[in-house]
């Protein structure tokens, strides 16, 4: 049986890399109205997605119970 975490892991890894790459090539800064906060959403969220994707892959490859 295909481990469902595998496609999830790979999709999020790819999306994470794409967002981080795009965030660096073309930085777009989000500013929040009435606040002195600005951030590059693609970089931040891309990193989170990448971490999640890698985590899923790690779970797949360290799972000893899989058939």
């Amino acid at each position, binding site marked *: 049986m295909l481990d469902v975490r595998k*496609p999830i892991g790979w999709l999020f890894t790819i999306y994470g890399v*794409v967002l981080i790459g795009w965030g660096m090539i073309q930085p777009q800064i*989000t500013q929040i109205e009435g*606040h002195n906060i600005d951030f590059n*959403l693609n970089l931040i969220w891309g990193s989170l997605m990448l971490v*999640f994707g890698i985590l899923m892959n790690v779970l797949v490859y360290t799972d000893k119970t899989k058939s």
Partner: protein
Amino acid sequence: MQHGIGPIDYAIIGIYFVFVIGVGVLLKKRMVSSEDFFLAGHRIPSWVTGLAFLSANLGAIEVMGMAANAAQYGIMTAHFYWLGAIPAMVFLAIFMMPFYYGSKVRSVPEYLKMRFNEPTRALNAISFAVMTVLMSGINLYAMALVFQLLLGWDMTASIFVSAAVVLAYTALGGLTSSIYNEVLQFFLIVFGLLPVSIIGLIQFDGWNGLVSKFKDPGFAHLWLQAGTAANPMGVDWIGLVSGLGFVLSFGYWCTDFLVIQRALAAEDLPAAQRTPLIAAFPKVLFPLLTVFPGLLALVIIPGLGSNSTTLRWDMALPLMLMKYYPTGMLGIGLTAMLASFMSGMAGNVTAFNTVWTYDLYQSYIAKDKTDSHYLWMGRVATAVGILISIGTAYLCMGFPSIMDYMQLIFSFFNAPLFATFLLGMFWKRASPWGAFWGLVLGTLTSAIHFYFTNIGTIHFTSVMAGNFWRSTIAWSVCFVATIAISMLTKPKPESELIGLCWGTTLNPEPVVLSWYKNPKVLGVIVLILTVICNIYFW
């Protein structure tokens, strides 16, 4: 800040298409019997079936409809979760799942055949098949709407492209493929929509800051104005509790084969019972992803809800994505929406092909064929179901809002059916013909009630209020009629009801489970969380 869509966003959407079809192709090798195709071979772990249970329902209605409803009716929309869905999911897990899973049925109509008789099953199978294709069209329509408005795609072209992708992966991998994509989609929704809520919370310095911007303070409360019908939704607490809290949500979550099918794919009974419960935990928090962006849209997007197509209620969430997301992230957000529509549709289509193949084709048209013949039929039914959905997508275009359209369908089919199930599972005396005629009369009542609402004889302050009351009335008619006719007709002998009805079950050895695997413990925890949410947003 208003963003447009760029090539990077198309690339992100494209990657998703490649992935879902890839999963279908990988799974195709495993589909050797019809059991694999329709029930995923009963070997899916419960966290997967749980998330699939949640996501099968996470279609256009949930994602676009709930945000739209929140912008229209305020946080009372969260009643769909904290009054409706969660208690019903717990009830299904604890009380009903033992009969569904324990009786080894392959579909909900099949249960009705075993518990009652052949005509009841046929009636339910036909109405369910009609309902699923009516529902799956909503997703195609919603998808086309978003892509037409945001990407400028042609409506018909985007309906056909979306239909082709769903066809590809469901016909290849059957239920397993649908379930896998539903799980994938669940994570996409969370990652794709969460930033909207986070940015919104920062912008307004939390919930109270947002509330202070509402013109009508009733928009911030679940119950405060529910004493009378003079609240944004136009329903008092009796209508809410009976229509939504009881009939509509129990009718949907406890009898709709679309969601039950996910639990039936689980590996054993405790896993099947955990399926709705595992789904219930994230479901408690889902209003943050669906209802909250709608409330933000109400404050942030001027003119929302006006007649222009770009500003209709259903556009609340897509407009928030455009508002907050830069290109790149916008692609992720759109992919999340697209994924939810596709999985919502695939869920309907896989439920449709199972009911068609097992409950109609195998039972009445072609008995005693080979297993591979039914597997083939399942694939054909998938294609036909999708073709009909394309038709119903155009039908759906004629309705003012997708949520109204859906609750209308539910009040016809699910509301009376829940009375049949309640009596069937918990009252041994409920007789086969009592169930059949009760169901017929309940559905007829809905139709008559809808007719008189439509011509204006019966009036409600909102369409939703009409749906809630219609459901309550249809349920009551079915309930009373089933009891009355059962008393006059012959019940099934008790020996034929073993494992199908409360009080007849040969209780298996109680399995000792650690607390976090015990359905009852999980059910109580999730109910406590739900009560807390109700009190906090009172």
